[in-house]
């Protein structure tokens, strides 16, 4: 069974280590916060200017002045701080953030990523994604392995305008966990019940299969 969005987030949460400052992108990455173990100390950064993000507010306690990068109302945890946008991106470009988790439309086997524009169809903008991918040393991409038409989103070369070059290190898709290596996508784990053959069929880029590929533990 391929993973659903929550299960992708659940698997990524296992990559979050004690003491990490983590930037979560919009979409699946936002869900990761729900699955980080209670005994791990972590602070979530949102690029619009908050460190120490907490859960959504209780009904009636929402504040228009306290939102995340997805414009959702949020709360803060003890020890949180607010800051301006230049300071926020100093944290990002200055490599003070330990882990960046973001979504993608396409990833190439050399680590290129595209996630901000479909020419002629959709232009929402890159937001903070270009700053994040250009600077972060530890980037995990959360994505669906294929598009709605079934075509692979893990490619030899991205077809869409790039967000960053050679920057993605790890991918957690609905089918697999993969590492981006100089030789291509190395298959690390399979989603429960998903075969290596299915992953191979869904991957256009070079897939490296080295020995037995274990099923992921959620």
């Amino acid at each position, binding site marked *: 069974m391929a993973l659903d969005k929550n299960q992708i987030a659940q698997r990524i949460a296992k990559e979050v280590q004690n003491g990490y400052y983590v930037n979560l992108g919009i979409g699946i990455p936002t869900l990761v916060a729900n699955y980080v173990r209670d005994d791990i100390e972590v602070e979530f950064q*949102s*690029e*619009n*200017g*908050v460190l120490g993000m907490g*859960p*959504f*507010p*209780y*009904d*009636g*306690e*929402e*504040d*228009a*002045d*306290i*939102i*995340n*990068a*997805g*414009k*959702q*109302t*949020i709360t803060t945890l003890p020890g949180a701080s*607010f*800051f*301006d*946008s*230049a300071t*926020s*991106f100093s944290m*990002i*470009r200055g490599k003070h953030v330990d882990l960046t988790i973001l979504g993608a439309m396409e990833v190439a086997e050399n680590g290129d990523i595209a996630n*901000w*524009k479909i020419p*002629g169809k959709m*232009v*929402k*903008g*890159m*937001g*903070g*994604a*270009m*700053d994040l991918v*250009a*600077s972060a040393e530890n980037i995990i991409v959360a994505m669906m392995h294929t598009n709605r038409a079934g075509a692979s989103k893990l490619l030899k070369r991205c077809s869409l*305008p*790039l*967000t*960053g*070059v*050679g920057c993605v290190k790890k991918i957690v898709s609905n089918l697999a966990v993969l590492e981006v290596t100089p030789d291509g996508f190395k298959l690390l784990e399979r989603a429960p019940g998903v075969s290596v053959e299915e992953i191979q069929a869904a991957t256009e880029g070079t897939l490296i299969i080295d020995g037995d590929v274990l099923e992921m533990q959620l």
Partner: protein
Amino acid sequence: MITKEVAGVDVALEGVTSGMTMMLGGFGLSGIPENAIAKLVELNVDNLTCISNNAGVDDFGLGLLLQKKQVKKMISSYVGENAEFERQMLSGELDVELIPQGTLAERCRAAQAGFPAIYTPAGYGTEVAEGKETREFDGKMYVLEHAFKADFAFVKAWKGDAAGNLIFKGTARNFNPNMCGAATITVAEVEELVPVGELDPNQIHIPGIFVQRIFKGETYEKRIEQRTVRTRD
């Protein structure tokens, strides 16, 4: 003390004309200069170049200026959530320059701080860097991005005093402090305008030197774009 206080939004926007370049603070609909935007709509100035992280929604924020076709060019990092914007952009009616969010902040801050340009790694190898000077430092490639030049900066703070000192609240801070002093005239609007001496100098985020005009906004709708809540167990 040098007084920056003006009577209201009418005086605060004196000198605004069509064709000007303006910075507007805010992230989404949080911390936007609501009163200045409403006045710009009323003044009906057009051919504006607007530097703002987002473009509002269809019926609020900068979306109000877009609806009336007052904007010639938008310089933003993210413009989703605005159908009229997307229509004007895809049809070519509106000139749009999309730039990385950190670059937007830093091009404002450079103008504020007197730097002509900055080098950033963001956008290297993408279409954002096309036609721009690039340079290698310690084995990594960077893109030269120029400081913005703007006629007006419209910012919104939580509290301020007649000296122009500003305190922001929560994530409504965002680009507002970076735009202060980054244009020829910075106009700050605040929810509370307190007597001079009432703000603790230790708590001031932006000193009044970066602000030319300050006024108390008449009303604040402070609309929430994505109301997300949890229920008590």
